[in-house]
């Protein structure tokens, strides 16, 4: 974790020596490398290691058991099993290499050209790829064998061609993603030739995936080749593991050991190649992870703390007397993320505030200030890794996070969430499931929470869509999320948030992702609904304009801490904390007067074309 990681070039390729160390530290990687080294050694030293010629047959000594001369015994025509096994390693490895070489020789250049230039070549190459990929490999190889005879080498060349789309696709995707990167543009502007760009910038990106792919493909090639030979379609004059397997299977009732050795050799080698590929991938991904977390650490300034122990006692615990009337009360809340080194990175630190019925409270801060994390702790929607490290949260007189809890109790919160506490998200589009209609996504929660029938829920949903200012509720009800505009989607989400008559609405930057004109409409809508339904609202925002427009009280957060809170009027007029002053200064300058936040634009909720017509 704390190892130094050298990084070369913009592609972020990690220096290979380091990756090798990582592979060897991984038990699977170490095993794979050991097995492969042994097999390679056997192949290289076959002449030395094998006492006999692989095809030397001693007819007088068939199917003999292991002995001093034939260490693994002999096969049905008296050939030495050990000698055949070592020579088999040579043929098998060479054929796998041949297959991978052919595949790379075709796939890599084609992928580079297709990905970099696109155009006709790319479409033709794609068509060929589709043809090759819809071919069942073995059937084709059987055909090739019928045409050209039982040669290991020819079938491996053919298989290389068949499997080349793997390299083509890999290279093409990588090149396409890099082609439009700024640094490649810069290189182009600097006058580098296409060839230089491809070899310098692009090749470095595809190198690692190609090594991984090659490892896997060698495994597949060995499997296919020994498979064909096992079927009796190989060249019987060449000693390979597949031919031995065939021979062993024929004599399985006489001597199953004949089957064992080649099966073991094939299984171990293929397994080692696959595991090696995985180990390389893990090693490269690990390097990525270290980089990311380092960056994260550099940025965070929050203090560290230790994780609390999980509470042993039961859930029902009475809240502090005299505070039951608060709708929500957050006391000394701390939220943290355990790190790999055992420390806890705190993102929320000693935050306390409360919200009463009918009150609108803003939580203001810049990104990374912990305001959203605070909101999600109230909703119980923190990421799995998050821990409550201090404090408590109570909703309407019951703890949702009791003192000493280390996580939000989902059991307790599920009684409130969606029923009495609801949520308006920031980015409207990504918060609707693209696979379901808007109507479905509104009706289902109502059926589950309010226990009403589908038709009742449907009627209610249409009414709600009308309430939030959508002009054609039925049309929107039937639409899929991608068929409506961002502003409409946010209205849909607001309608969803009020659909089950909550007491508290938590809005997480409800206008940030919207167009400026739509922002004002949405704020108006939230204000209207809040007055009409008399709900408590927490608005998380970085925008003091929104606070001034909507809120009764405000809490200002910085680096996970609450720096100031109070009535909006007081804080706007007389901010105490320097950070609040800075925020206010940056917000009020260069801004339109606040009255502009009131809607002056086109009527909301029209489909885009109608809106254009209205203007």
């Amino acid at each position, binding site marked *: 974790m704390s190892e130094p990681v050298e990084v070369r070039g913009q592609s972020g390729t990690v220096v290979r020596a380091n990756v090798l160390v990582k592979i060897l530290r991984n038990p699977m990687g170490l095993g794979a490398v050991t097995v492969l080294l042994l097999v390679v050694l056997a192949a290289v030293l076959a002449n030395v290691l094998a006492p006999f010629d692989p095809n030397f047959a001693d007819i007088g000594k068939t199917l003999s058991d292991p002995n001093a001369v034939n260490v693994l015994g002999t096969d049905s025509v008296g050939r030495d099993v050990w000698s055949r096994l070592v020579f088999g390693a040579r043929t098998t490895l060479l054929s796998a290499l041949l297959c991978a070489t052919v595949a790379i020789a075709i796939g890599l250049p084609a992928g580079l050209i297709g990905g970099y230039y696109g155009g006709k070549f790319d479409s033709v190459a794609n068509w060929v790829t589709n043809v090759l990929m*819809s*071919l069942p490999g073995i059937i084709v190889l059987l055909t090739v064998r019928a045409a050209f005879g039982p040669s290991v080498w020819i079938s491996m060349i053919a298989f290389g061609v068949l499997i080349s789309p793997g390299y083509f696709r890999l290279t093409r995707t990588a090149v396409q993603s890099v082609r439009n990167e700024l640094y490649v543009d810069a290189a182009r502007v600097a006058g580098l030739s296409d060839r230089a760009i491809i070899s310098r910038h692009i090749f470095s990106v595809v190198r690692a995936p190609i090594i991984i792919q090659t490892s896997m493909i060698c495994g597949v090639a060995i499997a296919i080749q*020994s498979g064909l030979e096992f079927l009796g379609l190989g060249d019987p004059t060449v000693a390979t593991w597949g031919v031995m397997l065939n021979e062993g299977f024929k004599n399985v009732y006489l001597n199953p050991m004949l089957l064992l050795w080649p099966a073991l050799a094939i299984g171990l080698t293929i397994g080692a190649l696959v595991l090696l590929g995985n180990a390389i991938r893990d090693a490269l991904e690990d390097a990525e992870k270290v980089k990311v977390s380092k960056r994260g650490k550099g940025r965070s300034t929050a203090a560290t703390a230790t994780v609390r122990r999980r509470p042993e006692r039961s859930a029902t615990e009475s809240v502090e007397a005299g505070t039951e009337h608060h709708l929500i009360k957050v006391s000394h809340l701390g939220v943290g993320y355990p790190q790999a080194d055992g420390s806890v990175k705190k993102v929320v630190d000693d935050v306390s505030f409360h919200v009463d019925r009918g009150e609108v409270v803003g939580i203001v801060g810049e990104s990374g200030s912990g305001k959203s994390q605070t909101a999600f702790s109230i909703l119980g929607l923190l990421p799995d890794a998050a821990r409550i490290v201090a404090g408590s949260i109570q909703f309407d007189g019951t703890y949702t996070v009791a003192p000493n809890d280390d996580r939000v109790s989902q059991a307790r919160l599920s009684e409130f969430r969606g029923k009495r506490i609801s949520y308006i998200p920031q980015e409207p589009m990504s918060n609707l499931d693209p696979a379901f209609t808007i109507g479905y996504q509104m009706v289902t929660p109502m059926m589950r929470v309010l226990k009403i029938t589908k038709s009742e829920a449907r009627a209610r949903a249409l009414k709600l869509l009308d309430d939030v200012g959508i002009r054609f509720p039925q049309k929107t009800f039937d639409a899929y999320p991608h068929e409506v505009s961002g502003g409409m989607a946010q209205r849909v989400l607001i309608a969803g948030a009020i659909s089950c008559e909550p007491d508290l609405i938590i809005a997480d930057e409800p206008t940030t992702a919207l167009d400026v004109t739509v922002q004002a409409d949405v704020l108006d809508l939230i204000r209207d609904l809040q007055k009409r339904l008399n709900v408590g609202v927490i608005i998380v925002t970085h925008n003091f304009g929104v606070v001034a427009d909507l809120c009764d009280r405000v809490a200002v957060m910085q680096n996970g801490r609450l720096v100031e809170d109070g009535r909006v009027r007081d804080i706007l007029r007389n901010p105490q904390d320097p950070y609040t002053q800075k925020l206010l200064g940056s917000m009020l300058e260069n801004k339109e007067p606040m009255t502009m936040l009131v809607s002056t634009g086109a009527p909301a909720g029209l489909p885009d074309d109608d809106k254009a017509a209205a203007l």
Partner: protein
Amino acid sequence: MVSFILKRIGSGISVLLAISFIAYFLLYFSSANIARNILGESASLDQVHAKEIELGLDQPLLTRFFDWFTHALQGDFGTSWFTSQGVVEGLASRLPITLTLVGVSIICIAIVSTLLGMAAAVKRGWVDKLVQTGAVLGDAIPSFVLAIVLVTVFAIQFQLFPATSSIAPDAGASAWVASMALPVIALLINGVASAAQQIRSAVIKQLEKDYVRTLRSRGISETEILFKHVLRSAAPAGLTVLSLQFVGMLGGVVIIEQIFALPGMGALAVQSTTMGDIPLVMGVVLYTVIIVIIVNLVVDLINGWLNPKVRVS
């Protein structure tokens, strides 16, 4: 929608054409001694020559291909050169066995890998570690080696299963299960290993989506979110993997069928290619490719149905 299907069928036909020509072209080289092989050593040169003319071997390649192709278009794939059995009839008796084996395996892979992948994605922790390690190891075992081990250990040594799984059509269900169990297991391990990994990462990707958080905030139960929303959005990734596995398996099953002595297409493919029985080989190739094209089309249609955005475009 209709134009999408027509387009896919069009491209399927172009692929089919290309493949049949390539296959025919390759087989052309193997047909040099075919008449002699059919008639045997004792046949006279005249007899061999007459046989060649009968089979159309004296014609140029393109003429032969065109002749075969026009007949094939009408569903006439000719007769085997060696057994004189109709190619279509020969395939019809073999195809069900192969398709059952592959189909049952794919369905088992789909179920098992979905369960494992989802468990790993949802539970994380040790369940995830276990599934991932298992997947890597399972990926590393070549299926035909596994098949050989299974036959040797369970069928030959312990005789728990029949070593040769020839299934009579009227055999009872239990005999049927017994004969299919080992081949399916052999095909299963690899498939589950790679599909479970894909499904795991697809489910994790969906679980991190914003809409999942919003669904939770609406009071929808975790089970409903998982099985209705997340699984649906993760399904296309899984289906794509399964369709690729299906293609691979149609080839791999050739070896598995030999190991378990199943009289499916695989045995036919081996026989016909070793003998150079061109009409039969062409039949096998064409049937396989047609099955692959249909499977790909069906997967595309299901993916379109699952994702309304694709449906529109």
